């Protein structure tokens, strides 16, 4: 089962990775964005981690993370990650543990809502390029073993992240650069990969 303890650990680990990699995320965001993704995500996660720890049920944890991202991030990733977590929370009901398949379905709902909010499709060089394959991998392996499914999701996210390097940006400020965005890995796809790296690490 997926428990509140696991969700707390997941969000805390995601926060640690963001802290470690904040400068790298900002560096990725410099040539093709406004050079704030690392600092923005760090501000969001600094609020999200304690909020998730203090919430009594999984839906409340995800909601608290979503609200923290909405209000603290400041950039586009705020409403996007906010939507991901809030919409995932809404599918779960007030429970302290949920089945892995329900958890995967909740993330699917959240990821779809995020893509809708950003009007982004795979191939647009956005976080969707990491999230969509990650959630698909999680769903397709979740019946076997959650740790293995989370590992598969992380691998899929990382492949999706790497593939953004050769893409032409079609969304956000990077799209103004057109062909000049090629050769740069998308910072949003990179932070989304960390989300699944964190899930894989705490699920082992």
């Amino acid at each position: 089962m997926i428990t509140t303890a696991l969700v707390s650990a997941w969000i805390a680990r995601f926060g640690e990775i963001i802290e470690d990699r904040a400068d790298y995320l900002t560096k990725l965001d410099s040539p093709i964005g406004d050079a704030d993704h690392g600092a923005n995500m760090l501000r969001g996660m600094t609020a999200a981690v304690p909020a998730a720890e203090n919430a009594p049920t999984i839906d409340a944890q995800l909601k608290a993370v979503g609200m923290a991202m909405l209000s603290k991030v400041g950039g586009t990733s705020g409403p996007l990650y906010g939507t991901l977590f809030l919409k995932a929370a809404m599918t779960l009901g007030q429970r302290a543990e949920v089945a892995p398949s329900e958890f995967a379905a909740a993330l699917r709902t959240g990821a779809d809502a995020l893509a809708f909010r950003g009007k982004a499709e795979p191939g647009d060089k956005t976080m969707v390029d990491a999230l969509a394959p990650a959630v698909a991998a999680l769903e397709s392996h979740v019946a076997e073993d959650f740790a293995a499914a989370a590992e598969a999701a992380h691998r899929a996210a990382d492949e999706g992240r790497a593939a953004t390097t050769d893409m032409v940006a079609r969304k956000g400020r990077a799209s103004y650069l057109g062909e000049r965005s090629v050769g740069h890995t998308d910072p949003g796809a990179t932070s989304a990969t960390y989300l699944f790296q964190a899930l894989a690490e705490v699920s082992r």
Partner: protein
Amino acid sequence: MTVGIVLVSHSRALAEASLALAEVMLSDERPHVAIAAGMPDGRFGTDATAVMSAIEQVNSGDGVAVFADLGSALMSAEAAIDLLGVGDDVRIVAAPFVEGLTAGLIRAAMGANLDEVVEAAESSMDAKLSALGRLPQEQVGERRGGTEVRLVNAIGLHARPAARLAALASKYDAEITVSFSGRAPVNAKSTMSLMALGAKLGDTILVDAEGPQADEALDAVVSFIAQGLGDPPA
């Protein structure tokens, strides 16, 4: 009727200055306005929860028009509306920030409904295109005739008289145009377009109308202009 106005911007300074600039056009009436802009530490950014509070603060039941600058401002506004679960009475305006806010604020101050405020704001780009002579040719159209009328009020087609004229024109089911000095006709329902004509006291403008209520509209608009657009005669 008081449509609420919400400004969503990356920068509090930008939002406050845009509002101050737009408010120059108002007389006594002030619509309910709230700003959700910038981050608490002064950095650029938007906060969807602040947008939610701003919408709730100005929503008196007649609807809210949300003006957003770019990128995350639009997305935070969409997330806020989604989370509030409000219906079609809270709308994000698809208009350039300064022009749209100016046109929408004037119309809201005059007691227009939400449809009219949004329409005024969303047609504000035409005014800029027209002022620069870049309205697409097909919008110029072939006009059969129209009625000439001279401006008799002291400030001509300035903000408040233009807003009154646009409000009057909006009441008719007709496409009403105003042209001046041989330039492309503009939509008489758009305050900003009318202002962009730059017509002053003593200038003669050409009014034309097409559609189901064209005749009534033309009569009403021409006589309103001839009587001074609600201003005291010069």
